[in-house]
């Protein structure tokens, strides 16, 4: 099947925070209306609404849209844990590419309590006393054992991202931290300390995905969705190399192939840094460096703003917090601003090709991972 070009027509963000006492519908409407305004589009012109969430209950997209008067339209809900937002964008891009719709509004939101992330389903390891950060810590400990990565290397990821977050008015944590502060913060699951774990958050984001005609109509810099890959790691019968993050590797390969690029062509990345260990291992999974060399990118500053391939210039989940259903969409908002050249104070100069990566799931045995390549016109 011949697929047509798909781009991002508009983006909107309700910056993540506690938002206590604010209904989720308000958070969604703020982001959705911002995306529509950014794209110069009315809701009545949208063919479908795709919604991403984890904890918000049935027919979420329908409920969130019911207060915004619009004709009958297609509405669908996507749950893929922390990768739900990017999964919904991928499905929207495929629907537009296959000419099922010309314009789709993707919304994602979450209202969460404070604390560290928890899962809905019972799991043997969680029942036996594991916690979400421990699952990354187990991978990190093996990485340290095999490749000589140190606890400080993981901690440096937080120092870098907090420096980025200080530049981003949309970030929730805007104070820089030192390596000593990160190392001395409360231990959670060794080597992870509190400042290396993202917080729960509430918030919303919205992305308008449209055909070339809609991108042309908006005017300005055009941002194309050039390729995406969605891959899961399933089957607990396979004893795995936990340092490998195979789902990231497979999703990246699919996305790069669809876009006709390689990791060397990438100018900046927003990736899933729920925990610093995940970020460092995803450098390797996305092919930004060879396996086992993630720590070198941190030590050499390659992934800092001004470096070879800046990662999480928004501050990442570490600085923005992590309202699960909105997290992936916020990455698309940031990368769109970056590729348009509108990321005041934190702009990656000359950015033309960007990668969004998100990963979700229970444990390291059932992971959904989505990788998307975005590019500015004329890359």
């Amino acid at each position, binding site marked *: 099947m011949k697929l047509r070009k798909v781009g991002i027509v508009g983006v909107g963000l309700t910056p993540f925070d506690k938002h206590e006492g604010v209904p989720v519908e308000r958070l969604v409407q703020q982001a959705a209306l911002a995306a529509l305004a950014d794209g110069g589009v009315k809701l009545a012109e949208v063919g479908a609404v795709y919604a991403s969430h984890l904890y918000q209950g049935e027919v979420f997209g329908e409920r969130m849209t019911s207060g915004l008067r619009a004709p009958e339209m297609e509405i669908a809900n996507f749950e893929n844990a922390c990768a739900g937002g990017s999964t919904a964008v991928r499905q929207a891009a495929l629907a537009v590419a296959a000419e099922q719709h010309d314009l789709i509004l993707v919304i994602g939101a979450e209202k969460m309590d404070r604390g560290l992330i928890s899962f809905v389903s019972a799991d*043997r390891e969680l029942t036996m*006393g594991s*916690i979400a950060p421990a699952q990354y810590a*187990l991978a990190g400990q093996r990485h340290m054992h095999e490749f000589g990565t140190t606890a400080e290397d993981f901690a440096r990821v937080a120092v870098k991202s907090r420096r980025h977050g200080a530049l981003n008015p949309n970030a929730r944590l805007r104070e820089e931290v030192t390596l000593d502060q990160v190392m001395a913060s409360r231990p959670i*699951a060794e080597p992870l300390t509190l400042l290396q774990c993202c917080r729960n958050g509430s918030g919303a984001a919205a992305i308008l995905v449209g055909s070339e005609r809609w991108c042309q109509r908006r005017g300005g810099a055009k941002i194309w969705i050039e390729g995406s890959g969605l891959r899961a790691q399933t089957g*607990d*019968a396979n*004893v795995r190399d936990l340092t490998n993050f195979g789902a990231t590797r497979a999703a990246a390969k699919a996305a790069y192939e669809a876009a006709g690029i390689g990791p060397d062509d990438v100018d900046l990345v927003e990736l899933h840094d729920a925990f610093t260990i995940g970020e460092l291992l995803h450098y390797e999974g996305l092919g930004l460096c060879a396996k086992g060399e993630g720590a070198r990118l941190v030590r050499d500053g390659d992934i800092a703003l001004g470096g070879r391939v800046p990662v999480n210039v928004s501050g990442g989940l570490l600085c923005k917090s992590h309202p699960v259903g909105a997290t992936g969409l916020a990455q698309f908002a940031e990368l769109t601003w970056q590729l348009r050249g509108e990321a005041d104070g934190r702009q990656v100069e000359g950015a033309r090709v960007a990668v969004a990566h998100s990963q979700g799931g229970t444990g390291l045995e059932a992971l959904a991972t989505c990788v998307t390549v975005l590019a500015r016109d004329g890359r």
Partner: protein
Amino acid sequence: MADGANKQRAADRQAPADAPIWDGLYGSDADGPYIEGGRCAACGGMALGVREICPHCHAAQQMAPVKIGRRGTLYTATVIHQGPEGFAAPYRVGYVDVEGGVRVFAHIDNGSAKPALGQGVVLTIAKLRQRQDGTTLNGPLYVATPGGS
């Protein structure tokens, strides 16, 4: 696993103060504790627990119980400092590779018998969780192989 749930309820009735943390995970015989594994008669593949459907070849009702995991090699481990209610933090958990390509999630000794990654370990059964109602939940705790691996 209705049968497993029934067994669990029976266990709760008979010994409410001393129950397994996860039904069907481990057992004990004259040679000491073991992990409940399953081996598929159709393909020979092994898994943690006896599965209705073999995860390797998808054959139905072909798995028979096999005792595994008395010894293994520590693949990775972390010390948890902020655990769920009833777990006495800090405590160590990890993955142990045992026979048949099976990897077991278990608690790992964090004291005098603390194994390093890559070292040989031996299975013991220990109290892992003390619930507020007084129930003790037991489960696998691997310790370093005495005298090294």
